[in-house]
């Protein structure tokens, strides 16, 4: 391995091999890949088409502003996403290469070239081609555009890798991963508000919008000096025939590239030689454990635990701890909070049209969404269980299920009821407060009844990869289809509760409100009692099959 390029080639080969194997290792992976192409292919092409429309139909100045905006967003996304656990780059862990006798230049080159093969990078290729094609009106312009885009993309990928390596110590810490849940919520909510504002603007404001104000905003002066801005300014200058300015902007872009390259090289060299650089996780302190610490619980909960079978109370207590300690549970709670943000923002945009049918209907659909969000956990209650440990205990399986159901109910029911009551009060739909609260409560009972069976018949181990949640064994498409089918069954069995409760309220059939409520309560409770009786039995019968399904056999 004398030639310095050989290790780089090997790294690129490894990347290609891992990527292709990831797509083709099983029929499920192949189907997932096809789905990926079907879903993301058109998105990528659509983005390119949008770019083409904008660059050919907007005035040249506005086109460049638009391009600068888009490239800046992409650039920022590539830097932020890995830090909150969404690996846009699925390149192998750089630190694994440190056991080999490689120079930092080789590692840098190998990693950067490999990153160009990432699916997320390939996703950008059609849009980049369209941008380049739009500015290929002359040979010189085409050359400047190609150089600017290439340097920009490589700089973007290099900076992203450097940031990940710089913060690897912290990113791998559990505390950071836990904190990232909150960041995901904040980013999702901000993204929703941004998209909502944007769509409002596209529907109502595009014709009256003052493009001049946007195009000449002082903000661009700052963005121009950053890598995406410099790249666009180089293209713009070349388009105007000012090659000197184009060269200066390209020079600035090259300076960014060189600085980031130097920083990345220094960082890799330091880490390679065992230096502790970058953000590190705070070391855990070990102290002698001499006292028994028990979680503080309210008098109500303590009294409840005393009345429950021991295994039910233990399971419930364990699951409640998981709700505030486990990122998966917190992600589901974050989703509910996200829906609440969406509701409040949407209702705010009604401009105070209180008590309107629109507001009531909207609240109903959002409450339905909120209930269905909970099915992520309800339909796979065993997904985060230490199954071997659980199934080795002689605890009655019905008690285990009951404990899990109670934990979910104790968390989800109050949150759902309070959020919906708040929304109804905000919209002055006071007559909807009680029905909505009852709907959340009975809906949850119904979903639990259905979810108990689904959890036992189709369990899958939940694997957290950063902030991404997936099933173990990469069942991909099959798992996705089962989840869709489960959701359909849950919706079907949930519908009678909603209809009996809400039809009389929305149709103003006052004399049917109480019988409807009673009917839905009886339906939900009977369904649940049947579920707990037969699902407990089924759990006992199927436990070895469940375990075999959820854990891979060692030998």
């Amino acid at each position, binding site marked *: 391995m004398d030639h310095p390029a050989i290790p780089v080639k090997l790294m690129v080969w490894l990347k290609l091999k891992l990527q292709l194997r990831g797509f083709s290792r099983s029929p499920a992976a192949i189907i997932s890949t096809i789905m990926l192409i079907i879903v993301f292919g058109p998105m990528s092409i659509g983005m390119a088409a949008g770019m083409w429309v904008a660059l050919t139909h907007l005035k040249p100045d506005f086109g460049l502003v638009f391009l600068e905006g888009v490239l800046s967003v992409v650039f920022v996304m590539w830097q932020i996403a890995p830090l909150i656990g969404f690996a846009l780059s699925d390149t192998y862990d750089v630190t694994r290469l440190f056991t080999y006798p490689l120079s930092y230049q080789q590692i840098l080159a190998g990693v950067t070239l490999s990153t160009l093969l990432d699916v997320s990078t390939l996703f950008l290729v059609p849009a980049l081609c369209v941008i380049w094609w739009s500015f290929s009106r002359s040979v010189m312009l085409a050359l400047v555009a190609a150089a600017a885009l290439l340097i920009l993309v490589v700089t973007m990928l290099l900076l992203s890798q450097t940031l990940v390596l710089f913060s690897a110590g912290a990113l791998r810490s*559990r505390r950071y991963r836990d904190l990232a849940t909150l960041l995901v919520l904040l980013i999702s909510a901000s993204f929703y508000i941004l998209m909502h504002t944007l769509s409002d603007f596209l529907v109502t404001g595009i014709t009256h919008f003052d493009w001049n104000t946007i195009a000449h905003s002082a903000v661009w002066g700052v963005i121009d000096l950053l890598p995406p801005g410099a790249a666009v300014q180089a293209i713009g200058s070349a388009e105007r025939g000012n090659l000197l300015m184009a060269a200066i902007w390209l020079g600035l872009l090259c300076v960014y590239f060189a600085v980031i390259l130097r920083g990345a090289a220094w960082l890799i060299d330091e880490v390679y030689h065992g230096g502790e650089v970058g953000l590190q996780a705070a070391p*855990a*302190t*070990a*102290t*002698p*454990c001499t*006292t*028994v*610490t*028990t*979680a503080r619980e309210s008098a109500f909960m303590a009294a409840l*635990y005393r009345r429950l079978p*021991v*295994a039910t*109370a*233990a*399971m419930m*207590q*364990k699951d409640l*701890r*998981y709700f505030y*300690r*486990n990122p998966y549970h917190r992600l589901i709670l974050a989703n509910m909070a996200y829906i609440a943000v969406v509701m409040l923002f949407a209702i705010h945009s009604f401009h105070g049209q209180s008590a309107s049918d629109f507001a009531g209907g909207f609240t109903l659909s959002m409450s339905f969404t909120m209930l269905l969000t909970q099915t992520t956990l309800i339909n796979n209650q065993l997904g985060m269980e*230490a*199954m*071997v*440990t*659980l*199934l*080795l*205990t*002689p*605890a*009655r399986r019905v008690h285990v299920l009951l404990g899990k159901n109670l934990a979910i109910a104790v968390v989800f029911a109050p949150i759902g009821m309070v959020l919906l009551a708040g929304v109804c009060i905000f919209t002055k739909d006071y007559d909807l407060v009680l029905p909505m609260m009852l709907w959340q409560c009975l809906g949850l009972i119904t979903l639990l009844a259905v979810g108990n069976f689904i959890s036992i018949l189709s369990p899958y181990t939940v694997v957290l990869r950063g902030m991404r949640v997936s099933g173990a064994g990469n069942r991909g498409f099959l798992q996705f289809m089962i989840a869709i089918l489960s959701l359909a069954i849950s919706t079907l069995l949930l519908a009678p509760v909603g209809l009996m409760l809400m039809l009389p309220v929305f149709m103003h059939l006052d004399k049917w409100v109480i019988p409807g409520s009673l009917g839905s309560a009886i339906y939900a409770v009977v369904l649940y009692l049947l579920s707990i009786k037969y699902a407990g039995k089924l759990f*006992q019968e199927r436990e*070895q099959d469940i*375990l*075999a399904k959820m854990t891979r*056999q*060692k*030998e």
Partner: protein
Amino acid sequence: MENFTDTETPPPPVEAPPPAAESIVAAGITKQFGKVIAVDHVNLLVREGEFFGFLGPNGAGKSTTIRMLCGLLRPDAGGVRIAGFEAATQLTDIKRVIGVLPDEPNLYDRLTGREYVTFAGQMYGLSKEEAAKRTKDLLDLMQMTEDPKKLIVDYSLGTRKKVALAAALIHRPRVLFMDEPFNGIDPISVRSLRDVLLQLTARGVTIFISSHVMEVIEKLCTRIAVINRGQIVGVGTVEQLRAQSESGINSSLEDVFIKLVQGEIKSSESLEWL
């Protein structure tokens, strides 16, 4: 279970006390994964209070056998009886009397060690107070020096093993299955644990241990079974295994084991370049 015969187990030594009650009985258990037969008609009999070693090379079928004995895996053929309970019909009763320490502890990562062991105790039917008291005693015995607020997800492998072992012991099991129990545990804790395990067998608890550390097995176990390619190739005391493998009187358990599994020690002659 009618087909089971005790012929695989040699007669006990002359000075041994009269045979105790059967604790673990496996009668022709078989498990096949696809085309691979992982465990092939395995017969085992372990008596109450025995410290029974279970040896085998990687992939021999040890873990699969243990999983079937614990009721975590249904055999394709054959039957299992633990402490007088039939696995096919009395699985819950079996789980009530066994403790299991798997090779890779399968714990609830987001609990503290203390919370986890107490939880396990409650799942075995102990009251919360009793479970908490026993947890404290067990973790003190294991010399757990972790921050009480630290979650299991942040523990080292050795500490996870200690927690898992505490959870396996909390309900005073009559039969204890352990897969590589000392792997990753510090020598001082190993010593304490070995003393505890020996005390347990003296009180009639049966211990079924699987390990690759021959010294531990040789020192602790009263009888040993060797499995290879899914079949039992030897069972008995170390002396009986020596006789079965036609090994010399001074040969170590390691030599006996290699002979029984017909292991080939690769010569390093072809590695001159190394």
